[in-house]
Each structure stands twice: as C-alpha cells, then as structure tokens.
C-alpha cells in the first residue's frame, strides 16, 4: 500500500532568542501513514507532536526533510498549487475556541473555504453548511451563532465540519478531546469512527490519552524530545512496549483499580530540551536496568521493521525477535 503521507528526515528548529541558539522541536523524523489507516502520535507535552503534524501539513515550514502527500512533494510547492492541494488534508485544532475567527459566525467560517475553492456558490452555501453541520450532529441553527456562544463540544464538532467542508482525505486530529468534558469524549470518538467509514478518511490522531490511542488507531508513534522513539502496530507497542519511555508512559496511565497501581521505573528529574546531549535523550530519566555508557554517548537510531521499531540500545531480545 502506498503511503498517503510520507515524511523523510523532517527537522524543525525554533530560534530561542534568550539562549541565542536553536531549539530543535522535530529532529530527523521519518513516518509513513498508509491510506485508510489510523495512526496515533503520543508523547508528553513539548515532545514535538504538534510541530511535527503542522510541518507535515505545511502549516509551518520544516527546515529540512521531504514531505510527500500522495505522490506530491509538499515541500516543493507553494502559492496556488499549495492552496489547491490543501483541500486534500485538514487539521483539527486542539482548542476550538482559538481555531475560529471570533468575529464571524460559524456559518461564515464554514462557508468561506468552500466558496474559495468553488465547492459551492453563494446560492447553495447555506444548504451545504447545514448539511455539514448535520453530518457532525449539530443542529443547523447553531450556524448563525458566534464561536463563543457554543460549548466546547459543539465548537469542536463545528471545527470538524469546517475541516470536512473541503472534502479532505486525510484528517489530522490534534488532541481533539483534551478541551472536552470527559462525558463527551466517547461520543466524539464514535463520530470520528463513523466519519471515517462514511468518507473513507485517513487519520493521524495526536493524543496523550493512551486509552484512546489503544482503541482507535492501527499504528502508533511514540515521540520523546523531538524524536520518534518507538513505532509500530498499536496492539504490539502498547502490549509489549520496547522503549523504556513507552513503558513509563503506559505505567503512568492512572487506573481505577487500586490493585493495579504501578510504580514508574523512571528516575531523575524531567529535563527540558537539551541540544548538548550526544547520547539518548531519555538517558537522565531512564530506569532501564542495562543503562550504560553507550546510552550517554551515542544517540540510538530507530531500528526494526514496519511492524515495530525502537530507538534504544538495549531492546529486550524477546521483543526484537518478534519484530
């Protein structure tokens, strides 16, 4: 299966004026999302998930690397060509209240991209917006309201309706549930599943809720400190995590059952980004029993197969053979 979206060695740096140096938010990352699949992207805050996703859709420009969408090099095109291809992939923002222009109504916000791309004209715009709102289970009269007049759940649905207005094939969902009440989350996930079936969409789901990722993705990439440390089939990665960071991430999931209370293997302080570490970025926090000098000096590369790959010098042999 040819990948719908393919990233090769993508790097993104931000200038830090205070430190007079660059911070690498995404470091040499390569991933592939095959058409029709659901990929999860997990990792702690600040690990570069959002930056990676935004670079992948050219919402911000990567400093290096190749981005290919369905055979088209996104990093090579610009202007009208880029504007046209943008209808093929859409991004759903984490906080819907920031993702809408506060001075236009929901209907105007949803209609504008359709008018720009000639998907509808002024005459049938209203009808199409109503249809889109119904598709995400919103009543049509919400269209006349302003963003702040909607609840978080309603606005996130409206935001999905706006993304769907240009008929995309790939949808990037950036922590779409984090701004929502817990009781609404399962409804939202059901909606995602239904839309995927109806519109044969490909998903990239960014989340730090491992429970959601476990049930609603086919593959998962674990990000830590600007790099992907583990990638593979969701079931495999979450049941037999090979990277110490993935393991710690799984252990940190709170459980309602007190008998299942687990202790983290990680030690040390959570450190911010550091450009100077030559070795493994997880070295300071790593609780791996075989942690050694090599970890401190040499950066581990992502190794393995399409089923599962890990960036760790001391992968459990049992897991390696499986991969």
């Amino acid at each position: 299966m040819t990948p719908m979206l393919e990233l090769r060695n993508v790097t993104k740096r931000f200038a830090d004026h205070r430190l007079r140096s660059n911070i690498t938010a995404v470091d040499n990352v390569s991933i592939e999302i095959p058409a029709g699949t659901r990929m999860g992207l997990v990792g702690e805050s600040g690990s570069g998930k959002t930056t990676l996703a935004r670079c992948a859709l050219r919402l911000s420009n990567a400093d290096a690397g190749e981005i290919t969408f369905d055979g088209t090099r996104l990093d090579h095109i610009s202007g009208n060509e880029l504007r046209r291809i943008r209808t093929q992939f859409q991004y759903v923002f984490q906080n819907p209240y920031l993702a809408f222009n506060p001075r236009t109504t929901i209907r105007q916000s949803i209609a504008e991209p359709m008018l720009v791309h000639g998907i509808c004209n002024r005459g049938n715009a209203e009808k199409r917006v109503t249809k889109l709102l119904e598709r995400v289970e919103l009543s049509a009269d919400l269209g006349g309201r302003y963003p702040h007049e909607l609840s978080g759940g309603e606005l996130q649905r409206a935001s999905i309706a706006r993304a769907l207005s240009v008929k995309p094939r790939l949808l990037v969902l950036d922590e779409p549930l984090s701004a929502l009440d817990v009781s609404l989350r399962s409804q939202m996930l059901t909606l995602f599943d239904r839309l995927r079936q109806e519109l044969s969409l490909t998903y990239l789901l960014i989340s730090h809720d491992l429970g959601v990722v476990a049930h609603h993705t086919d593959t998962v990439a674990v990000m830590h400190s600007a790099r992907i440390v583990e990638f593979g089939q969701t079931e495999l990665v979450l049941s037999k995590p090979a990277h110490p960071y993935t393991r710690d991430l799984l252990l940190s999931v709170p459980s309602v059952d007190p008998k299942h209370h687990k202790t983290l293997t990680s030690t040390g302080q959570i450190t911010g980004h550091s450009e100077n570490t030559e070795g493994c970025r997880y070295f300071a926090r790593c609780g791996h029993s075989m942690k050694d000098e090599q970890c401190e000096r040499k950066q581990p590369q992502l190794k393995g197969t399409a089923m599962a790959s890990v960036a760790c010098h001391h992968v459990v042999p049992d897991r390696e053979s499986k991969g």
Partner: protein
Amino acid sequence: MRSFRWVPVTLFVLFVVVRAGRIGDLLSTGTFVEQTLVALTFTLLAAIIWLTITPWPEVLSKFFKPFDVRIASLVLGAIMILAVFAPIASGHHPNTQLDLVNGQLLPPSLAHPFGTDFVSRDLWSRVLFGARVSLMIGVLAVTMAITIGTMVGMAAGYFGGWVELVLMRLVDAGLSIPRVFWLLVIVSLWGTTDIYVLILIIGLTGWFSTSRLVRAEVLRIREEDFVVAARGLGISEAGIVIRQILPNVVPPIIVNATLGIGQVILVEAGLSFLGFGVQPPWPSWGTIIQDGSARIIAAPWIVTVPGVAIALTVVSLAILGDRLQTTLNPRDSAQF
C-alpha cells in the same frame, strides 16, 4: 427611556425658533451659500423628526442604549450642527471688531454669550466658525493618518522580512524627528498654508504611531490558530488579511482615531501659533486659545470656551468609539 429620542428634535426646534429672526434675514438678504444652509436646516429638521417618530432598526437602538452614549452623541451632534449652521447660529461675523473702544474683553453676557476677545470680536461666533475648521482638520487628517498607518502596519506585520524592515525603519525615522519640526519643514517647502494643504500635511505626519500599533496587533493575530486554520483551508493571503486579520485590528484603530482627533486639533493650534496654521483673522479652536492665552488672567473665558469645546468633542468621540468597538465585537455586544 423612549422619551429620550425627543431630546434631539426638541433641541433642534428650539434652535430654529430662537434663531428665527436670523433665518428670515438670511433668506431675504443672505448669499447663495447662506440660503442653501437655511434650506438644509429645514431638511435636517424634517429628517430628525422622521427619525424620532419611526421605529429604529434593532442595531441602532442597541447602539444608543447606554446613557453616556446618548449624551455623547447629543453633545457631538450639537457641536456639529452648530458648526455647519454657524452663519445661522452666530449673531455676528467672526472677524468683525464690534466696538474697539468699549467692547474689548467683555465678560459673558446676554448680548455676547461667551464674551468678546481683545479686539472686541464676539467669541460665540468665533467658536462656532472655529469648530468648522478644527473639526474638518481633525476628522480628515485623522482619517488619512489611520488609513496610511493601517496599510503600512498591516503590510509590515503580515509580510515581514525586508518589507517590514524597510517600512519600520522609515517609521522609526519619522518618529525620531519631532512632529512640529516635520510640519514646519513641509509647510515651508510647500509654501502655502491653505486648509487642505494643512490637512494633507498633518495627515501625512500622523500615521507613524498608528502603523506601529497595527503592526504589533498583526504580529500577534497572524500567529493565532484561526489564521493558521484559514491558511490550512487554502484561503488566499489577501483573503486572510482582509477577512481574518483586519476585522481583529479594527478595535485598537478606533481608539487610536478617537484620541487622534483631539491631538490633531491641538497640533493645528500649535502650528497657528508659529504662523503656519489657519491664518488670522479666521478662527480655529486652536488659534482662539493661542490668542486668549496672553490674557488668561484678565479674560479667562477666552481660553476656557474653546478648551471646553475640544474636551467635549474628544470625550464624546472617545465614548462613541468605545461603544462602536463594543458593538463590533460579537462577544461584548451579546452581553447587554
């Protein structure tokens, strides 16, 4: 507060009744311009009566709901009507020296509501005619300044790079030289001090700070998620600038403009003092203050009257600007 709508029409009818004699005089012996003004008075009266008795659209009645907004629009409306109809409202020609022997520096009285100045000119007439000049310079110069400032600021903020570099260094250079110096240089190079030239010059030197303000706002807004979202949806740069960014920089521009009008009225006063503004004997609020400042102890009303007029204008504009801002913001306008 429905009855409040009758206040403007009552005041206007009162104005026509009190000045009925003058209106009659102008109709029979006035110039063509003065006769046109008389005709305009009655047209306006009819319009105000019509507005009072017909129901207003919801937007308008919402806008005028707060009490301070009503007072401010009443004050500003009165000042504007008196300025436009100055030949009707004033008793004397603003430049006529009435009685150079006994009529200098007379305190306010029934014959001269605001007194007379040091060459025995009726201050009430001078303030009314001065309002024409000051308001025209204020409104037109500020409109020009914020238009240029907004365009420069938007271009610099949105496009960045060398566009921003060039434009902002230009603004820095403009701001580093005192405005009065700018004005003097341009005025002396221009050679004339026609009022339209004055407006042009004040407008051309007034946009620097606006452009900085707009640029800062654009820099903030262009990083917001909704702008990124619009770009992600394939909306063109022009579409983003006009429909996403511009509506969100309007509020600070309105505040800037309302305060700018008061400032420009004072700048014109300063220019007049240096001999480059409105040429004597014609009055503007600024020149009246300049004239009166030398006799502030002997005749304090000379500076007080135009000073209060400027203050009332600026405060009323600020209240209306604030109200406009609230009405334009859907988040605030839903609350009252």
